[in-house]
């Protein structure tokens, strides 16, 4: 026993203390509790994993039977294997850094205790998700992080747009969760267990499905769940809106950890996907389509957080491309490096926003290099990493995915490489717009306090050097090694794409700043379309939301509720009133009419008795 349960329970304790007593605690106590509990769970995770090394097989701990139905037992089990060990390190490590950063970022907020309570609750559910040893525990965590995401997106609930964004995230995720729960039902039906070990051991004996079979359906349904949580086509629409939440939340939940839950889940279910090539192909196609599609949107956004949000969607697409082409380890590797550089991008953006007292529009930034030098340097680190400049973290992971894509289907590689170029372009566009040229806003920029810049520095280091962490090697026992040989020309192409993107961004936004406007004019229609995010939100509104709302209004409200239910209730009332109106006539107040009724009644009783043959 390693007492793995302690890892999620520490943040839960922090949540309970801050959630219940936070209003009466001083700020120092609040963030001390919040950070300390996460630090403890990080430490405990490190200790447990160190004790369990080399961790060849999963270490499962059963605490109690949760559900016992017939011969099926679903336990409250936690497990650690190499995959969840990687996730644990990312979640607790990056989580800890972001908690520390939040001390500075949220310092002036009234909901200080509430914020840290939610953040701790999120850590609890995320760790439950990662360590759950069966699909049901995973589902509990899965739903829990969704709840926390909702709570934190709508953290500033007085802002209408924030509550709307929270609702949108929650509802869109429900669609994905519907797929996930159907998949869980199917697994239960076919394997009579939900334990990962048990399911995968049985799957190993199933044949590879050439056409659509049970495993393919399970895989597709799990993928539907993943598209919800990990913001892939067609359910990605909630993530850009989720930027309404505080920036540390965007970094922790909507970049580094929660949105990667779908990637983790697909990787965890790799045994199922390997037997269902069609589902796996679907994962790759959706991932690639999302990566490309959202990168094009990211090219033209003006809100710095929106740029990074579409970038997150795009990078998640990359991860799915990796998984879908069979390079599970590469997908997880990219998850890890992405957690570093994307958390850093968001936290850096947060630092910029903090410096400008809430300004998020890139058009009102500029020239911040001198004012916020530390933020600039760390953002530069993150940008070169995501752009795939050689020997940074993003270079290694992205490269493995692209090589794997090439060996799967060359066209996937080319599309992925173009996407890599666009990624480099939009990230450096944001960087150049914010830090180069002349300042275009009217706030008084100032560098952020050390409590914010210190976590940034750590993440910057990880963004640069994180690629040397041998994640794929570590995961080798879990996933079959991708047989893709190193191919120098492929690497060169993707690096060239990245550098080309950086150069283009420099050319457009530093060398010739008047050019983008002209270009946008000459490609007006295309530019507007991309700027409006292909009007997908409007399409969903017209196709899904409108009919639902109108249908609810016309049928469910006017018809069922007002017509049927209210009609029944009111009808009963009206009937009672009518009968009462007749009966009221009996109660005349005339004593002799009452006496007459008594007489008639007793005569009636006597007659009845006579007919019945008298009293026996």
């Amino acid at each position, binding site marked *: 026993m390693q007492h793995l349960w302690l890892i999620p329970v520490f943040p839960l304790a922090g949540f309970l203390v801050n959630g219940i007593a936070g209003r009466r605690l001083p700020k120092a106590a609040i963030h001390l509790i919040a950070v300390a509990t996460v630090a403890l769970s990080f430490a405990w995770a490190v200790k447990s994993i160190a004790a369990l090394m080399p961790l060849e097989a999963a270490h499962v701990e059963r605490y109690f039977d949760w559900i016992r139905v017939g011969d099926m037992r679903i336990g409250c089990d936690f497990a650690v294997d190499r995959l969840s060990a990687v996730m644990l390190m990312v979640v607790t490590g990056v989580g800890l850094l972001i908690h520390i950063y939040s001390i500075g970022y949220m310092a002036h907020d009234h909901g200080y205790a509430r914020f840290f309570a939610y953040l701790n609750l999120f850590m609890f559910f995320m760790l439950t998700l990662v360590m759950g040893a069966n699909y049901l525990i995973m589902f509990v965590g899965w739903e829990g992080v969704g709840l926390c995401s909702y709570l934190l997106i709508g953290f500033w609930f007085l802002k209408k747009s924030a509550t709307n964004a929270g609702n949108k995230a929650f509802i869109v995720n429900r669609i994905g969760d519907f797929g996930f729960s159907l998949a869980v039902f199917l697994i239960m039906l076919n394997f009579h267990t939900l334990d990962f070990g048990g399911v995968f051991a049985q799957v190993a004996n199933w044949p590879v499905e050439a056409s659509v079979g049970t495993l393919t359906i399970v895989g597709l349904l799990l993928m539907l769940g993943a598209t919800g949580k990990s913001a892939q086509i067609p359910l990605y629409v909630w993530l850009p809106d989720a930027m309404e939440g505080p920036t540390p939340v965007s970094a922790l939940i909507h970049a580094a950890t929660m949105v990667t839950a779908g990637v983790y889940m697909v990787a965890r279910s790799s045994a199922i996907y390997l037997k269902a090539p069609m589902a796996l192909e679907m994962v790759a196609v959706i991932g690639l389509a999302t990566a490309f599609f959202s990168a094009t949107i990211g090219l033209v956004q003006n809100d710095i957080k929106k740029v990074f949000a579409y970038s997150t969607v795009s990078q998640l697409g990359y991860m799915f491309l990796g998984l879908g082409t069979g390079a599970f380890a590469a997908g997880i590797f990219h998850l890890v490096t992405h957690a570093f550089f994307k958390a850093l991008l968001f936290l850096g953006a947060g630092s910029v926003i903090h410096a400008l007292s809430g300004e998020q529009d890139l058009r009102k930034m500029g020239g911040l290099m001198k004012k916020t030098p530390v933020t600039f340097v760390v953002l530069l680190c993150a940008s070169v990493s995501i752009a795939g400049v050689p020997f940074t973290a993003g270079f290694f992971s992205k490269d493995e995915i692209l090589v794997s894509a090439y060996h799967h289907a060359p066209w996937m590689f080319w599309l992925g490489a173009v996407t890599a170029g666009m990624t480099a372009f939009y990230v450096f566009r944001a960087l150049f717009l914010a830090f180069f040229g002349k300042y275009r806003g009217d706030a008084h920029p100032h560098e952020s306090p050390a409590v914010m810049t210190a976590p940034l520095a750590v993440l910057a280091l990880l963004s640069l050097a994180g690629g040397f962490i041998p994640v794929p090697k570590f995961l080798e026992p879990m996933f079959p090694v991708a047989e893709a040989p190193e191919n120098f020309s492929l690497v060169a192409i993707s690096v060239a794409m990245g550098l080309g993107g950086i150069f283009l961004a420099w050319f457009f936004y530093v060398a010739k700043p008047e050019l983008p406007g002209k270009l946008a004019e000459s490609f007006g229609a295309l530019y507007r379309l991309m700027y409006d995010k292909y009007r997908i939100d409007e399409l969903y509104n017209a196709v899904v939301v409108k009919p639902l709302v109108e249908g609810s209004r016309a049928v469910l409200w006017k018809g069922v509720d007002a017509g049927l239910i209210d009609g029944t209730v009111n009808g009963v009332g009206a009937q009672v009133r009518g009968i009462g109106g007749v009966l009221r006539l009996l109660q*005349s*107040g*005339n*004593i*002799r009419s009452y*006496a*007459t009724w008594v*007489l008639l009644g007793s005569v009636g009783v006597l007659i009845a008795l006579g007919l019945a043959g008298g009293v026996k």
Partner: protein
Amino acid sequence: MPNAVPLSWYLILSAVLFALGVAGFLFRRNIITVFMSIELMLNAVNLTFIAFSNFLKQVDGQIFTFFVMVVAAAEAAVGLAIILTVFKNRATLQIDEVASMKN
């Protein structure tokens, strides 16, 4: 007891008295008459009790009769007091004219 009056005669007499009481209660307007009709009904019932008591050779019926007579006496006292008060206030004993609680 030779030539004893049969039970049925008592019962018939009792029924007739009761019916008269009911009729008087229902159809007479004068409060005093109504009141007397009630007494008549009570005593019709008493007669039944006594008759059965004699017929069954059991004392229960007679005990009940005493109860009824006690209640009837109390009722007569209260009832007559009410009637007196009504007459003092309204100067009438017509039952339809004292329906002041109606409407």
